[in-house]
């Protein structure tokens, strides 16, 4: 018996000694930093005599690797695929070598799930060596990714779609490597709709929005500006449905009975069609005007609906594919030819993000070793994007023209969003100033900025 124990015991002791004696793993991992510097396992670097940007033996700089995370499967797959298309199409139609630096990228599917996204971003940063991460689509996933990446100074995190407000507002100092080039805040476009609704004479609005950060923020933006402008939103008339909801009959019945003159509606992905079809089936389309949050009437979510269900519906947005401007119509042509579809804002967003990267890389002559320099360069750019004119504010969020859009039928039987009014030069805080706005908490279920209390 003692036999067995001593053998086992000595085995454990040996293992423990081996473990203690060995150095920590990962000490010899290869890291690829930006700007073309490669440190190999033995820690050697090749430098020119002048100590300038190092190059590999081949005399060329390491390609700039970009990791793109989008939901390519799941309830949001239609929008996620659009986002991927926008990104792919930019690089298919523009040079992929800038200032001697070639661009490489890899697109990964998050399935709209934060945990999957976290695993994939680890793979992109650690295994693939990405210096820029572009993603995601859903605000909650974007928040999770921002949190994962914020302590990594060698990575820039760009979110051209995920619009969690606070990342460029109250929390911006916690995320020094985050920038929203090509992106927006959830409430940026709904502020404008609230103002327009007051001017149009609407007095009593209800809302139906998806119950998560994006829905809270977009709805809050509308409610605050609408109520502060004189309109009324009874908190009891604010309905919230879970993300991915498909059955809207109960919600629509409730809205029908509220006696309001307008309904602010925001849905995402597959729920858009379900909501709009239900709304139309109940006969409410011609009875109670819908004031749509941008995503509700985004072309990616309504492409396959019956035109009668959507024609004439109003929404606000930073993207209007029917906008008669060269940059916009160029993108429409490219996308229509490549995919047979009219571009949604998801396409325009990733296209614009790529545009920003391309322009910034020109300015830094291909050098991305100093990430803050790249970010500064982006912050200084004023670009004509498919959205319209775009420049970044002091908080890393774009300033755009925001459009009041209406669904119009085209000659080819399809429909699209055409601007009927333009609010120029709108930042994320409009109509307040940054200081005023940041005094109040971020929009949430508990805080909708309702002036009526």
């Amino acid at each position, binding site marked *: 018996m003692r036999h067995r124990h001593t053998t086992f015991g000595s085995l454990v002791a040996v293992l423990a000694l081996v473990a203690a004696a060995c150095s920590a793993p990962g000490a010899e991992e290869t890291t690829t930093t930006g700007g073309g510097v490669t440190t190999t396992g033995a820690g050697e670097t090749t430098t020119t005599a002048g100590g300038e940007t190092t190059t590999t033996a081949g005399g060329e700089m390491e390609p700039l690797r970009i990791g793109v995370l989008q939901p390519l499967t799941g309830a949001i797959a239609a929008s996620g695929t659009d986002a991927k298309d926008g990104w792919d199409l930019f690089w298919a139609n523009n040079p992929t070598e800038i200032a001697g630096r070639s661009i490489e990228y890899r697109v990964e599917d998050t399935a709209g799930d934060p945990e999957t996204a976290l695993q994939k971003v*680890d793979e992109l940063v650690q295994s693939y060596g990405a210096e820029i991460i572009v993603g995601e689509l859903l605000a909650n996933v974007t928040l999770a990714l921002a949190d994962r990446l914020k302590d990594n100074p060698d990575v820039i995190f760009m979110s051209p779609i995920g619009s969690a407000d606070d990342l460029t507002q109250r929390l911006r100092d916690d995320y020094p490597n985050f920038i929203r080039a090509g992106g927006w805040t959830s409430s940026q476009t709904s502020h404008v709709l609230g103002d327009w609704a007051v001017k149009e004479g609407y007095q009593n609005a209800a809302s139906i929005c998806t119950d*998560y950060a994006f829905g809270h923020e977009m709805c809050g933006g509308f409610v605050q500006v609408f109520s502060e402008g004189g309109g009324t939103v009874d908190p009891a008339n604010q309905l919230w449905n879970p993300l991915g909801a498909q059955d809207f009959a109960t919600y629509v019945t409730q809205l029908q009975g509220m006696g309001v003159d307008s309904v602010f509606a925001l849905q995402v992905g597959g729920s858009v069609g379900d909501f709009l079809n239900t709304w139309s089936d109940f006969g409410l389309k011609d009875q109670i005007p819908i004031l749509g949050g941008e995503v509700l009437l985004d072309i990616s979510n309504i492409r396959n609906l019956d035109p009668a269900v959507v024609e004439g519906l109003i929404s606000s947005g930073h993207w209007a594919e029917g906008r008669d401007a060269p940059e916009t119509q160029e993108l429409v042509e490219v996308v229509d030819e490549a995919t047979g579809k009219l571009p949604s804002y998801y396409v325009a967003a990733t296209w614009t993000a790529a545009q920003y990267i391309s322009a910034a890389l020109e300015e830094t002559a291909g050098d991305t070793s100093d990430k803050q320099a790249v970010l500064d360069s982006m912050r200084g750019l004023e670009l004509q994007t498919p959205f319209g004119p775009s420049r970044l504010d002091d908080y890393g969020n774009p300033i755009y023209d925001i459009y009041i859009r209406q669904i119009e039928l085209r000659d080819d039987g399809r429909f699209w969003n055409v601007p009927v009014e333009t609010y120029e030069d709108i930042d994320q805080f409009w109509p307040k100033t940054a200081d005023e706005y940041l005094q109040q908490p971020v929009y949430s279920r508990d805080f909708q900025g309702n002036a009526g209390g």
Partner: protein
Amino acid sequence: MELVRRLSPTARLKLVLLAVAIGVGIALPYMVGSFLVGLATLALIGGLFSMSIDLLGGYGGLITLGQAGVSAAAGYGVGYMANRIGAGYMAQILTGLAVGLLVSAIFGVMAMRSDSVYFIMITLAQGMIVWGLSIRLNRITGAENGLTGIARPPGLTLYWQYYWFALGVVLVCSLLLYVVVRSPFGSAIRGIRESEGRMRMLGYNTSLQKLYLFMVAGFFATIAGILLVYLNQFISPSSAHLTASAIGVLQAILGGMGTLVGPMIGSFVLVFIRNVVSQYLERWPTLMGLTFIVVILFARRGIVGALSRGWRAWLRRRYGDELTGPEKPAELGADVALGAQLKATGPS
């Protein structure tokens, strides 16, 4: 060693494989980079989670579709203390354990009188109740945004440190599970799986035994949940969703229910498909589905079952029928008993 010589070929093989696996497990951070080590950590935790499901399903005959509710509740306990309260690590872990055990106790009491299909339905509902609460209770759980900034305790912050820690915890838990399964309690549970009526006639309070089993399995699911939340440093409602529970069950089936090592193998296979294969194959969910279908059709007892069958077939060819006896589930010691019996009676 005399001990090893006295064991049957099957037992010897198992020991060798186990030693090799543990050896590779310990040496892994020296062999591969941070990403794969992170995946291995994830697979270990998923394996522990599936083992807890296997305890209920494979040994108890009670398939649960709500285990993710238990582990997510524990994770939220940790996350809440870390994110909302800012408590210390001990407080976080103790809260996680307490919440997980409380939830498994409540669920166990609700489910202990049912079995088979009804058990599946009740546990499914239970898991989704946890999911629903995590979406609604914004102040506690952060709803869809989840809870972020859940830092790992000092000494475990680097990926390889956390990996070894998780490996150690999982090995200890596996040992505990092995002890549970081999104990009289384990035998009683298997008896209940075979025939609950007969066990009751023998005087067992089967409902109580099932409750104990639920809590024991819940304990291991709680550990897995806590390990996971420190790994991801994040938790969101998707951790409690039916999908997470279902994947746990599928991993166990894929690896082999009723074996302890099967679920671990299943977890590694799935993590591999989801994270490595997915880089090269856009339709990786299709591959996952096909894998399950193939296993169900051709290898009912999972990967371990298929390997066992192959091993026994090889043994039979090599040693003839006396050693292996008629085909039966692989169990440590079965070969030894048969071998000893033959020695006593002499070759026929």
